């Protein structure tokens, strides 16, 4: 899974108030080249929770993202390439996503997160 997807997922176990962002426990992750598309990045930027993306990237060993961002930086090619790499090229293959509130663990196998809940969690 891309960090783009991680940025969008939350835990919805019964009663959880703040199931976002999910903490990443990585067993295996890899970089896969993706086509660099500035228009896409500008389009998706307003949808992104920046602190969550930055933390996730750092957990997976990429600490090039600046702490503060604004729309003006979307004109800067160097920034766009870093944003692109973090969002679209770092893939979590094996590991676990952990709910920050309940500690509920969601496994990720072969790049597919399993967000199914057990019957006592809904």
């Amino acid at each position: 899974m891309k960090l783009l997807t991680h940025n969008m997922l939350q835990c919805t176990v019964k009663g959880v108030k703040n199931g976002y962002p999910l903490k990443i426990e990585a067993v295996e992750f890899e970089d896969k080249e993706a086509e660099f598309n500035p228009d896409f990045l500008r389009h998706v930027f307003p949808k992104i929770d920046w602190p969550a993306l930055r933390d996730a990237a750092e957990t997976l060993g990429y600490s090039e993202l600046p702490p503060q961002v604004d729309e003006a930086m979307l004109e800067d090619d160097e920034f766009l390439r870093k944003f692109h790499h973090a969002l679209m090229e770092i893939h979590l293959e094996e590991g676990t996503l952990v709910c920050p509130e309940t500690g509920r663990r969601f496994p990720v196998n072969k790049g597919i997160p399993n967000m199914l809940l057990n019957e006592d969690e809904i």
Partner: protein
Amino acid sequence: LWRHKYLIWFAAGDFKHFGKFRYEELESLAQLYDLPHPIYAEPKSDDPDCPYAVLLSPSASLVVQMTLRSVLSQGVYEVWASGASIEECIENGKLCANDPTKELFFQKGITFCGRVRAYGKKFQSSEKLPLITRFLGALPFQAKVDLDNPDYEFWIMLDYGAAENKPDQPLKRVFFTRKLVKSSREPLLLQYALNAREYIGTTSTKAELAFIMANQALVQPGDLVYDPFVGTASIIISCAVFGATVFGSDIDIRVIKGNEKTLFDSFKQYKLPRPEIIRSDASRPIWRSGMTFDAIVCDPPYGIREGPRKSGTKKEIKEIAPEHLDSHIPRTQVYDPVMLMNDLLNFAAKNLKLGGRLVFLFPANEEYSEEDLPKHPCLRLVANCEQYLSRKLSRRLITLEKNYEHQDGLSTSTPDEAPSHARMKDHFFMKSEDPSRFKKPKNSAANGGDEYKEELR
């Protein structure tokens, strides 16, 4: 604003199954490419089989872009003249001789050809040539004729109205046109036909319908598009072809993991970026609030072919001991189609962008009425088109657009009486039914196929 007329020649595909879809696709594409209103130069034909629509556009490039995205059009033509009779059309065509934008076509050194197409009447080739000569001869062309590879093609389009089984219909209208571009219909349907796809299942959506859905969803490059019942990913493949970043989820691990092949193999086959796939339950939204998709597309399971399931159980819930957590298989229960629809609309109302569309397939039998459609105060019905499958059975392609921001307390309204889709399963599994028809379909994607019942989930 000066606008020219353009003639869309609809695909000669399966009119019977996609008749009304052609206008709806055209109107969606007009919205996608910002064609100014009104888009039609002439009212839509009340003949559902009529292969022509006449559009108004400030430029050829807009209608060309639309046509290149259309799967239900064959091509687009610039209208030089029209008339209620051949004579009137030729007279009107003569005005083009003084039109400075058409000087190019009256130069020497270019090649051209003339062709005839008639709807509702069969023309012999011996009748065509004199007609072409009359039209082209009325204008100061100096071009040389080249039938195989001309620079420009001029088409005389005759409309005799409905149905070839009624001979000697009076001529209704004539267009003298120049061909601009062929649609991408043929290459798209050939390249993405199910019968050559790496990974399909019994309910995979055929390429033609999947591309219509992507057009209804106004999918553009860079969009985030989500299918909450992804199955074999047949719908989001079409969205990915149009440049979207696609997401899919499914409760059933088998559809995600496949057998020997998986849905990821189909994306590799088409050289599309790997989709983001999540195992999850459509009744439990997994996306953070405030996160919005540009479009949601799906063919939900209604219990006809695929028994819909969701998380949870009706039995007593026992706490799962920590040591069993890793190996515990979450229980699932039957997912009532009416609940499923409500969940889908509530989700779309929250997690679609404003102006974004939810496009889904909806089964209908003879009991169907528009009252059966689920409704949500934030979502407006933009298209509701019937795909005819058999005398007793059809399915509808529903397009909803989010026109109001979601607020707490807004949710779907369910009809007072149980809608017809609530009983779809009972309707289909009658004792006399032959179970053999639920074999793997032959996947004749290019011609629309015939095993329609196979397609209903």
